[in-house]
Every structure is written in structure tokens, then in C-alpha cells.
């Protein structure tokens, strides 16, 4: 059971929520399959432990480290004698020793030495064995927990202690807990390097509602933050929106009372209509085309919006996203990537294949010309709603006497579609000043709205499903 327990411990550190029942199943699989045929063992254990496609990659990487390196490293560890000595000393002196009798020396020297040795092994990578690290980690945890229990007569996991509980603990114990954390972080760091995926980043603070609220209601005109810094919060917002939308959709599907079915269903109740059956409405998913302005002033709003759309994409089945400054690219393919990091990478790749050389400044004219080229295989139709997220500042577009050429092009977008909506984060007092072309866009039939906060923006986009 030890091997599987240690392996499960390791997987849990990397975010896989493995229940005791799954651990037992994994153990049974281990007994049935054996370890001689690695491929069989690998696939069997994977079937028993992993429950989501997104976790397959984490499992494979940890499995590889835990079991594959075992054979090569057990024979030639970097410093086997010192490590074994430290470990044995550490375990033999702590095993069964009441907490009060654990001396300062053990706590500060032996434990630290054992931890340091293990961390070094983690650090150098080549000489480490996932299994021995997992063993060491389990030993440390058990010992620490026992020490806590003996000292305070409570059985609270160390991680769950409140700050006030921690205050009454002796310094040595706090130090031990800190060391354990350091040890864990060492392991995490190494695996994160291997996985290259920040979705495993367990060190980030969990998102709480107040931080999400602060994002949603901040004035867009005064905030500028890179998507990398707020990625987790944006993904969380997207998920909340998706689940809210799913529930709303379910309710919206209920139509009028279906008398025929209600009557049939309630025959069993002697015709008394206890169970009502409602007709189901067919909800047509709207075609939504989003054009995000990623030029200087609105870039970060577009970035945020992309991250939220990525997390909530299940809600919009027929969505296409384009981004533009002086040229336009389609980034819809990026939404299909498994993790937000890969989606962002794919999004950057899309920008490597622009139809014309890229400049930083916005040019609605050339962007819309590119747009017509990009949609030639799937033209706009009467079910399409086009949503432009931008400040309507056509810095580099050319003008005729009647107005900018971009307005003429936008008219060609307005004609075949249901609606063209422009969401402008810029303060209304600045509209139609300088290079702002808001009035011309309004003239050709685009509806322009001011979105002051991220919440306004989200509400607007999600309301499209209702309008």
C-alpha cells in the first residue's frame, strides 16, 4: 500500500483531488496489474485515479518521475549514504518519541538536515527518485502530525490550523511546519518546471468573492493590468458566469403548460394534476462575432475579455473572436486549447500570421478590410450579431469628405447582420473628440454603448443570448 499511498500523496500536491475510495481502487489495480509491465501498470493506474481529461497530463508527468526514475536512481543516488544516514537518524529518533522529549537538537539539526537533503535531491533532478521523495514527505507529515497531537491533544491537520492556534505553538513546531512547506515547495517547483503549466500553481492565493467583485466593478478607464497577473481571477469569473448561464438557460427552456402530457402523467394520480409537464422551448444559439481592439489603449480590456470568454466558452456554441489593431486575425482556435496558458500561447501564434505588417496603432479601415477576407468562407448572416470591443479611435484610417472609410466598411457589416454593437470603454465625454469616429459609426447603423466596468461588459455580452 505504501507505494500507492506515496504516489497518491504526490499527485494530490499537484492538484489532483483523489479520494480515499480512489486510492483503494488504485491499490487494487496495483495488485491486479503488477509493475513488471510498465505500460500496463501506467494505463491501469491512470484509469483508476484520473477522472478528467485535463488531469491526464499531470498524472503522466508525475508517474514518469515517480516510477520511471526509480530504477535508475535507486542504484546511483547523488549521495546515498548521507541521505540514508540522515533519513534513518531522523526517523529512528522521532518514531514513538513523545513530543515533549524531542530535543531542540533533533528539531533544528536532524530534521532540517533530512529535509535539506531531500530538497537538494529534488533540486538536482537527475539524482532524485520520486518514490523516495514521496516516502520522505509522508514520514515528515506523519511525524509532525504525531508531534502536534501529542503536544496539544488535538487531531487537526497542520494545514488547517488557524493563525490563533498557530500562535500558541512552540517556535520549534512552527519551524518544522515552515520546513515542511519549504520541502513541498521544492518538489512543486521541480514538477512545475516539467509541466510548464501554471494551472498547477498551488502557491497562488485562492480567489475569494471580494477580489472577484473588485475586478468586476473597477472603472475600466483607470485600471490597467496584464492578463498574466489576474488570469486566475478572470478564469474564475468565466466559470461563475458559465454555471449561472447554464442554470438560467435551463429555466428559460421551460415553456407553456403541456396539457396533453400533464394529463397523461397524472393518470396515475386519478387525473389530479400533481405533476405539471411544461413544453420545451427551442433556444437558438446566436451567432456571435466579436472584434476586439488590441491596440494600445484598450489592449488590456481585450486581454481580460479573452480570458473570460475562454473560461465561459461552453455557453457560446457559435462564437468567433477576431482581434485587430491595424490588421485583423482570428483567434477562435485558441479557445479550444486545454489550458488558459496554451490558449494565450495559441493566441500569440495567431498574430504571427497577419495579412499585413503589424503596427501598434489602430486602423479600423485596414482591419475591416482584413475582416472581410477572413470571413469569406463563413459569411455573416441575419442571425449574426457583431460585437466590437474598442474605443472607435481610427488613428490611421483614411478619410473622405463625408467621413472615414472605416464607416463605409462598417456599413457593409451592418447590412447583412442582425446587429452591430460597439462597446466603448472610453468615457462618453471623450467620444467624437480627436480621432474618435463614434458619430460616423452610429450614422451607418452601429449601436454604441459605454461600458464602465468589466461587469457592464460581461452583462452586455451575456445578455445577447436573450435578445
Amino acid at each position, binding site marked *: 500500500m505504501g507505494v500507492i499511498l506515496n504516489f497518491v500523496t504526490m499527485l494530490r500536491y499537484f492538484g489532483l483531488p483523489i*479520494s480515499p*475510495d480512489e486510492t483503494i481502487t488504485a491499490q487494487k489495480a496495483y495488485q491486479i*496489474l503488477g509493475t*513488471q509491465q510498465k505500460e500496463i501498470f501506467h494505463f*491501469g493506474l491512470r484509469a*483508476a485515479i484520473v*477522472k478528467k481529461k485535463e488531469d491526464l497530463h499531470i498524472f503522466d508527468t508525475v508517474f514518469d518521475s515517480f516510477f520511471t526514475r526509480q530504477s535508475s536512481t535507486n542504484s546511483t543516488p547523488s549521495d546515498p549514504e548521507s541521505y540514508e544516514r540522515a533519513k534513518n537518524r531522523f526517523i529512528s529518533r522521532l518514531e514513538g518519541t513523545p513530543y515533549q522529549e524531542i530535543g531542540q537538537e533533533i528539531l533544528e539539526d536532524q530534521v532540517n538536515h533530512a529535509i535539506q537533503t531531500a530538497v537538494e535531491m529534488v533540486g538536482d533532478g537527475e539524482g532524485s527518485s520520486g518514490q523516495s521523495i514521496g516516502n520522505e514527505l509522508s514520514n515528515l507529515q506523519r511525524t509532525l502530525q504525531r508531534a502536534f497531537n501529542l503536544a496539544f491533544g488535538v487531531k487537526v491537520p497542520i494545514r488547517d490550523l488557524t493563525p490563533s492556534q498557530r500562535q500558541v505553538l512552540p517556535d520549534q513546531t512552527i519551524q518544522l511546519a515552515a520546513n515542511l512547506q519549504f520541502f513541498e515547495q521544492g518538489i512543486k517547483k521541480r514538477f512545475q518546471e516539467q509541466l510548464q503549466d501554471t494551472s498547477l500553481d498551488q502557491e497562488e492565493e485562492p480567489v475569494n468573492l471580494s477580489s472577484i467583485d473588485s475586478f468586476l466593478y473597477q472603472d475600466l478607464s483607470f485600471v490597467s493590468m496584464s492578463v498574466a497577473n489576474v488570469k486566475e481571477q478572470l478564469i474564475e469569473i468565466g466559470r461563475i458566469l458559465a454555471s449561472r448561464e447554464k442554470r438560467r438557460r435551463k429555466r428559460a427552456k421551460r415553456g407553456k403548460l403541456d396539457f396533453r402530457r400533464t394529463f397523461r402523467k397524472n*393518470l396515475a394520480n386519478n387525473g389530479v394534476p400533481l405533476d405539471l409537464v411544461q413544453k420545451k422551448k427551442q433556444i437558438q444559439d446566436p451567432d456571435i462575432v466579436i472584434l476586439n481592439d488590441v491596440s494600445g489603449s484598450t489592449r488590456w480590456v481585450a486581454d481580460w475579455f479573452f480570458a473570460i470568454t475562454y473560461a465561459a466558452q461552453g455557453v457560446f456554441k457559435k462564437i468567433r473572436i477576431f482581434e485587430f489593431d491595424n490588421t485583423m486575425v482570428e483567434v477562435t482556435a485558441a479557445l479550444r486549447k486545454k489550458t488558459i496558458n496554451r490558449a494565450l500561447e495559441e493566441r500569440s501564434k495567431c498574430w504571427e500570421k497577419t495579412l499585413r505588417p503589424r503596427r501598434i496603432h489602430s486602423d479600423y479601415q485596414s482591419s475591416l478590410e482584413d475582416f472581410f477576407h477572413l470571413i469569406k*468562407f463563413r459569411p455573416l448572416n441575419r442571425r449574426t450579431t457583431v460585437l466590437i470591443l474598442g474605443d472607435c479611435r481610427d488613428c490611421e484610417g483614411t478619410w473622405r469628405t463625408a467621413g472615414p472609410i472605416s464607416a463605409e466598411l462598417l456599413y457593409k457589416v451592418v447590412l447583412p447582420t442582425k446587429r452591430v454593437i460597439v462597446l466603448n470603454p472610453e468615457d462618453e465625454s471623450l467620444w467624437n473628440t480627436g480621432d474618435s469616429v463614434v458619430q460616423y459609426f452610429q450614422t451607418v447603423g452601429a449601436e454604441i454603448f459605454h461600458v464602465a466596468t468589466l461587469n457592464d461588459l460581461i452583462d452586455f455580452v451575456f445578455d445577447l443570448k436573450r435578445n
Partner: protein
Amino acid sequence: MTFSSEIDLATQKYISNPEIDITLQLALKLNRPILIEGPAGTGKTSVAISMAGALNWKLFRIQCYEGITFESVIGEFDYKRQLLHIELERQKSTSSSLINFEDIFSRKFFIERPLFHSFIENEPNVLLIDEIDKSDEEFEAFLLEALGERQITIPELGTFKAKNDQQIVILTSNSSRDLSEPLRRRCLFLYIDFPSPERERKILAAHTGRNFDDPLIQSIAGIIQQIRQYDLRKVPSIAETIDWAKALVLLGKEHIDEPTLRETITVLLKYQEDISRLEKQLSEIIRIGTK
């Protein structure tokens, strides 16, 4: 300890891979349901059908849809028969108090449906719950008892435990919605993606009667792998590839050129948008795919 698979899916023309074989075998040994996820058309449903065939077990199938209910899969009382029975009993007897009302809520008046059949079946069987993601969350929650405890409860009739240990439950999902954690926890997990070129060649060979290294089979597999690289609305699945291969064999083609691909591409691609997108790339796809 060594491990060997007892299920030979190849007898059912299902070309599996080690991961599929091992998961099925493990489900058999551990008596656990399997949740199979993956893109549409990658052979998830066929795994269950082929497994039942390979083991010579009975297959019970529940096709999930939005609004599927407990009654649709377990069964319901036949109200009309119950009424007739009461009327009959009334005519026989002068006093209605002699009617045994417990009788009308017995198995005799119960219309049994696939899940119930599967549980009371004495013979080994495979229960396929297809496209579970299309059902509502309530239905998913109802399945937990059947999957975890291997029993179903009908208030009027009591609890029915699965009659034999040789029952495998296979659930498939296209991930159109996220399934609940409790359901996932009760199942072994298998993800079936699009096949590797080698496995695809074996599948095509099995379904067309050609050899694995036949040039036509190699070309088809190579071209399909190339087409899947493009960002399409609907990527061709294994089922479509098999249809295309059969069409080419029926047309007597021994190699694939641009006109052939153009004429038959509608078998593979189901959206005009996708066809238009690949129109100018066909020669390039053939060149790389048949290399």
C-alpha cells in the same frame, strides 16, 4: 504478477489500443463502471458494443437525452392495467375492501425498462449508458446508487441488487457539459482521442478487408491525419474515415489524387465552410499525407 487481457475486441472488428484493453480488463476485475470521454466519432459507443460481443454477453443500451427520467430507464407502473385489474376485482367481489391494493403495485404491473432488465438479468451483461452528458443533472444523480452500490430502489417494489457480479456499466460522454464529481469518482476513466496513424491504418484495414500496408489504406490514413491538423468546425472522425475508405474501395480507386479527394470530400467534411477552407489546400494535403 503479469497481466493479460481476456477481451479480444479484434474479433468484433474493433481495433483497440493497450489503454482501452487495460481499462476494460481492469473494470472487469474490479467490477467498476467505466466513463469514456472523447471527441464524437472516436469509437466510444463501439467499445461497449464490441466488448459485449467479444465476451458474448448481453448488451443493454440506454440512450440519454435532455429530459430523460427515472421512469424511462427503470420502468413505470402500467396505470391502464392497474385500472382494469381494479375493475375486474370489483366485478368479482361485492365489497371493494376485498381488493388487495398491494397487488397492483407488484412486478406484474410494472413495465420494465433497460436499467431494470440489466440489474435483474441472471446472465452476464454490458450496460451502455450512452451520451450521459446529454441528460439532466437530476438523472445523473439518480444513477449514483446504481453505479456505486450496484443497486436500484423503486419505492413500491423495494431495492434490487445486481443479480450477478459479471455486469459492466459503460458510460460515454462527448463533454458537452461537465459531469459531476461524484459520478466521476465512481467510475474508471478512459479518454479516447483520435487514433494514431498506425491504429487508424489497422482500423481501416479491418473495415475494408485490405492489408494494413496497402498503399490506398496508407494514403487514406495519412491524408486524414493531415486534414485533422486544420482548424475545422467538424474534424473527420473514425466513422467518417471508414465511410470514405469504403467509398474509395467501391469506386475502385487504388490511389488518391486531387480530383478524387475533391469528388469525395463531402463524405469527410460536413460543413460547406470546412470544404471551402480546404479547397485550395487539397494538393498540399495529398502531397504530405501520401509521403
